[in-house]
């Protein structure tokens, strides 16, 4: 056991925790003022819901003793056996419990990301049920495949340092299923749906950027060279994506926007997530530049395709996650991380195929299960608030309060 590593991972866990309220502000600023609390609530409350789910059985399903390379067993239900000694398969230098609580923060923010897709129209009660089901049936198994001891994608050699597939592609494609099943907001395409508080969104993006150092550097699970390299890669990719997003905007639309800078930062953070611990600083800049442009084009494409993924979870997280996961297959090098792998540019073309497989499997599995869950809940509980409630806004209709009283 190593006290420095333990301290580092505990601090990283706290940083990742802050990302969920950061996401709440990021999303909250982009909705209309009548939905600001409803949107923030759907993120903030995940700290409550998933923390408890994780301790009761989520952690056991994701990281517990392997069953058929597909899922963890229920041996660690109620954190039974998750001790203060290291669990060697995950880390030899930090307590097993430290690893568990660090991973809890990932399990919390992943489903929270999806909330941007159904912003301004989802019923709160159905939302809570969906989140518990999605965490249990989608997040926990996929986390097991990629990160769990014995998971089949991990055994294949898929590289996902901090969650490009498990977190971002997973949540991003579920967001597409949500937007398709739920349909657009009332008035979408005809009424102006202007972000009510972009300073709030920029503050949220800043908190995400800050917390993401815990997400990516913390994934080294040790206070050492690998954490430093992941930290640097994270920062440089994000910086590059800010520049490429506003650059693309400037060329295509004529003006660089603040919302574009904030969105570019998040796109860069998403894309570097799978790669952070496997690539060097210059590769990180290239990944960030690519993510900023590709995600911006994906967001533009949404308008043409006509589905209402209200806050662009698909364009930023799903597409950004794919860019990062696939480019990891090109830019990964054992010079950065001997325990990682080499990508195509470092003499191992096969890694691209493995990365593509991990991406494809996550896309298909998460989309299908999410789609089925939405259909079932739509038929039983109803996914949307009534038209009248939607017009009044979620703050008053779902929570009986107002974000601003002037």
């Amino acid at each position, binding site marked *: 056991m190593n006290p420095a590593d333990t301290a580092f991972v505990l601090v990283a866990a706290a940083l990742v925790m802050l990302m969920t309220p950061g996401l709440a502000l990021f999303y909250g600023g*982009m909705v209309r003022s009548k939905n600001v609390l409803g949107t923030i609530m759907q993120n903030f409350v995940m700290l409550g819901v998933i923390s408890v789910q994780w301790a009761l059985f989520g952690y056991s399903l994701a990281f517990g003793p392997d069953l058929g390379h597909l899922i963890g067993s229920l041996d660690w239900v109620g954190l039974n056996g998750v001790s203060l000694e290291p669990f060697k398969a995950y880390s030899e230098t930090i307590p097993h419990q430290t690893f568990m609580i660090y991973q809890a923060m990932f399990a919390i923010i992943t489903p929270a990301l999806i909330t941007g897709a159904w912003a301004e129209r989802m019923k709160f009660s159905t939302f809570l049920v969906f989140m518990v089901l999605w965490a249990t049936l989608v997040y926990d198994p996929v986390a097991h495949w990629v990160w769990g001891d014995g998971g089949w994608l991990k055994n294949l050699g898929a590289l996902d340092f901090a969650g490009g597939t498990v977190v971002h592609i997973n949540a991003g494609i579920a967001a597409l299923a949500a937007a398709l099943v739920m349909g657009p907001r009332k008035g979408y395409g005809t009424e*102006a*749906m*202007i*972000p009510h508080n972009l300073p709030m969104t920029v503050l949220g993006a800043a908190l995400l950027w800050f917390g993401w150092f815990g997400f990516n550097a913390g994934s080294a699970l040790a206070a050492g060279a690998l954490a430093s390299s992941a930290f640097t890669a994270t920062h440089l990719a994000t910086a590059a994506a800010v520049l490429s997003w506003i650059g693309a905007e400037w060329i295509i*639309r004529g*003006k660089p*926007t603040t*919302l*574009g800078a904030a*969105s570019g930062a998040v796109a860069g953070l998403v894309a570097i997530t799978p790669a952070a611990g496997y690539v060097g600083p210059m590769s990180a800049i290239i990944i960030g530049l690519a993510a900023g442009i590709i995600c911006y084009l994906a*967001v*533009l*494409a*949404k*308008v043409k395709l006509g589905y209402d993924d209200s806050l*662009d979870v698909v364009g930023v997280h799903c597409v950004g996650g794919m860019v990062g996961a696939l480019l990891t297959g090109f830019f990964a090098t054992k010079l950065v991380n001997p325990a990682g792998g080499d990508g195509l540019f470092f003499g191992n073309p096969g890694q691209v195929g493995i990365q593509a497989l991990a991406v494809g499997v996550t896309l298909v599995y998460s989309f299908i299960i999410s789609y089925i869950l939405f259909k079932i809940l739509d038929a039983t509980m109803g996914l949307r608030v009534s038209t009248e409630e939607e017009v009044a806004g979620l703050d008053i209709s779902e929570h009986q309060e107002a974000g601003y009283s002037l």
Partner: protein
Amino acid sequence: MKKIEAIVQPFKVEPVKEALHKISVQGMTVTEVKGFGRQKGIREVYRGMEYQVDFLPKVKIEVVAPEDKVKTVVETIIQHARTGRIGDGKIFVYPVEEVIRIRTGETGDAAV
């Protein structure tokens, strides 16, 4: 007595106020308003979504003046609110039937 209601560009409120002070206008009411005239609105873009924003921010200044001063007040406002470009705003003049100062009960020109 007349009420002069001027819709002006927000950045022109201060110069207009100063100029009205100089010609001894002792009181006014200002309100932040939104609207459009022949200028129409502007376009705003958020990520991929473009919106036509029709209502632009303006400030409404209301001043009540005795008959003999109306012309000077209107000219002062025009002089200080004008840029010569579209969107400078408009001035409306209405008759005022009565003015009462609440504190003293004075009426008419004495109450303005």
